[in-house]
């Protein structure tokens, strides 16, 4: 990975920083759609936006090699190993201080290509890397979490406005300088957030944001609203009289004393409790340990969380096939999404193994 360390001494003796630049067939001068199937290659000399980058760096860094690949070729899974090998060879030969791809603006395939190659160089070749594209490029959600993606204009018409941001961040990465927050450096927020101290209190910023809003001035929310992964609904139960139903609660119902030591908040586990042969869940045998609500009502009658009494009645009447042998419980306060997904997958495996075909989840 190492490029030569900067020598002290006169400018003329100092070793310049080096970059390798990745572009597509179009920016390499081979044509547009018709050339999108071409394979990986190295440009002869320096062409395309690399010329602009060199001018912007004003002698501090220069592009040592420009590489390219057809947008269709690089996006085909079968070709990816070949492309990686080509990039690897160039990077190992040149030992650049930074790797740059694009910018791709709103071009979807080019965006994905840039992001994919950038990610590979950063993660597997250990060279700092940066790319750039329009914030709505489909490549962004796929790669932004671990990569620097400069926020560019929507189309290449804005190249002269976008390239300087790419050049500046690339130079910082090459010099191994600490990289500042997204808004300061111009890259798309990766999702990483760090607690820091602002110059202004929360009160000052909250009122200022409202004043800006009321005055019609631009403002930027500090908390982006993220969506949840959409899970399509499972198909409905065909014959409920033959279906075994599982019960799960996030209300924190556990046997007295919380034998599995489930956490009352930010829980990382769920408990599985045998209810074979039990007609009811009694007060004093079960309790709720959830840390986010007054659990008195739930502990006084556990059926308010896990409705076993009604379920047994329904099973006895033949309205449902039966109740699963166990109920599951955790505490749903501050439980993070990744952990929750794993719990759900684990629970689903247990249900499948136990012949449980539907579930009722109760939450507080």
């Amino acid at each position: 990975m190492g490029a030569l360390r900067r020598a002290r001494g006169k400018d003329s003796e100092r070793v310049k920083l080096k970059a390798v630049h990745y572009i597509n067939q179009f920016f390499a001068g081979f044509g547009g759609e018709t050339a999108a199937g071409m394979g990986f290659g190295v440009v002869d000399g320096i062409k395309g936006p690399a010329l602009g980058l060199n001018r912007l760096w004003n002698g501090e860094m220069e592009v040592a090699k420009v590489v390219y690949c057809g947008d269709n070729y690089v996006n085909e899974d079968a070709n990816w190993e070949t492309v990686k090998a080509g990039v690897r060879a160039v990077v190992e030969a040149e030992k650049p201080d930074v790797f740059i791809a694009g910018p791709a603006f709103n071009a979807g395939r080019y965006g994905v290509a840039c992001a994919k190659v950038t990610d590979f160089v950063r993660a597997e070749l250990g060279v700092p890397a940066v790319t750039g594209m329009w914030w709505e490029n489909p490549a962004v959600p796929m790669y932004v979490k671990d990569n620097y993606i400069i926020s560019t204009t929507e189309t290449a018409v804005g190249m002269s406005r976008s390239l300087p941001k790419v050049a500046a961040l690339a130079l910082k990465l090459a010099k191994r300088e600490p990289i500042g927050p997204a808004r300061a450096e111009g890259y798309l927020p990766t999702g990483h957030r760090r607690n820091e101290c602002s110059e202004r209190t929360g009160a000052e910023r909250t009122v200022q944001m409202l004043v800006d809003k009321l005055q019609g001035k631009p403002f930027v929310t500090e908390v982006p609203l993220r969506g949840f992964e959409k899970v399509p609904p499972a198909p409905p139960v065909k014959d409920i009289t033959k279906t075994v139903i599982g019960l799960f609660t996030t209300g924190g119902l556990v046997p007295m004393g919380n034998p599995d030591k489930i956490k009352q908040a930010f829980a990382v586990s769920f408990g599985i409790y045998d209810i074979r042969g039990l007609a009811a869940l009694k007060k004093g045998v079960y309790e709720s340990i959830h840390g986010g609500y007054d659990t008195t009502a739930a502990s006084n009658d556990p059926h308010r969380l896990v409705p076993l009494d009604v379920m047994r009645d329904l099973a006895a009447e033949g309205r449902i096939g039966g109740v699963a042998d166990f109920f599951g419980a955790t505490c749903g306060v501050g439980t993070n999404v990744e952990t929750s997904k794993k719990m759900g997958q684990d629970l689903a495996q247990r249900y499948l193994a136990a012949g449980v075909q539907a579930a009722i989840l109760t939450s507080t």
Partner: protein
Amino acid sequence: MIDMTLTRRYYDVKDVKFGERCAFEGGVLTVSKEELRALTADLCKAVKRVDFDITVPGENARIIHVLDAIQPMVKVEGEGVQYSGFFSTPYTVGRGKTNLLRGFAVLESAALPWDQANASSGLLYPRDAIIELRGPYAEYTPFSKTRNLVILYELNEGKSSIEYDNDIRLIGLKVAQRLAELTRPLEPDGEETFSTAETDPALPGVVLVWQCQNQGPYSDTFLYGAPIDDMVPTILHPNEMLDGCVVSGNYVWPAFKVPTYLHVNHPLLLELYRRHGKDLNFRGVIFCRSHNPSNWHKQRCASFNVKLAQYLGASGLVMAWEGGGNACTDGMLTIQTAEKHGIRCSAITFEFGGPDGTEGKLLVDDVPEADAVCTGGSIEKPVHLEKVERAVGGETFRLNKESGGFFPPATEALDLTTNTQMYLGGNQCAYSRVFAQAY
């Protein structure tokens, strides 16, 4: 309400020390333990005994088992008294003159019992609350910058949570009042007058919607001396809050509560006042409770909030709340309803996001209309507390009740996975400068 004019008279406390008689001279506050014990003797029923300690700004120390923090003040002119409703008839306050000891707070510290009868039910037990007086976490609270008199409560066994809660509060208020009384014959170091009279009617009207916790003992808020159960949203003149009409009884989650000191010196309220007549007209506070039991109740409350905002002629609304995800839903519905009625909103709240911020959603609940949300910082970051020279309030931390309890020594270094044990860690009244920066 142009006749609601209040002048706050500030008395700077330059030093606090113990002595034989309570006195305040030349900015030096002398505290007599004996006098204060005698003063509060008849209030000590569930409380066995009180002791006192003093902390100074930036000390190499921490305060633990913190419950409420109180602004010592005394009303010297105008109807009613400070903390109206406590030791007094609940006349409406907010007019006249009130003296404040500035740079000084009275803190309550007590190890409330964890036993079943008292504080077992899930939410309703006070988790250990930690105030750091130096280091990065000192930024969370004003109490690393104030001189504090910490009341250390020793409790009688076998009492109910309501009894402990009541005694602790009344003793704290009484002590704060007694010390503030010392300012009566003196001239203040500074003064500020608060009035919502409008100099420029063309400026947009703005209200603060302040939503407080109310879920049972230890998780409660008092308005003019009575808890706010089932309260329908109501209107307060900001001066009423300055004079202490809202008192906190909320100790359950240290990060998500607001002490009385900050209801009285509310950062958002004071900021709106600062800008009144400049770029907005501060029309009032809409005070409501959070943790409404279902979406049906929450929308009922949200709609009330918006109707009151409209009555006050507001075109802008600042939304803030105490509490966690449950309260967030209440707050978001108010924002949504307001925006649908053409009232623009901003809000502040803490965020989740996991240790590096990339995890899942940042907020428990949100609405598409919440497009102007300031971050109070992430509560899901690991906390490392350094070793300190002394811990005021107890010998050990009291952690992890639900898995049997963990009691490491209070002066030692401690690692926590989230900041929920840090007093004011959720930054819900927008006091601190901590925020989550996007990388």
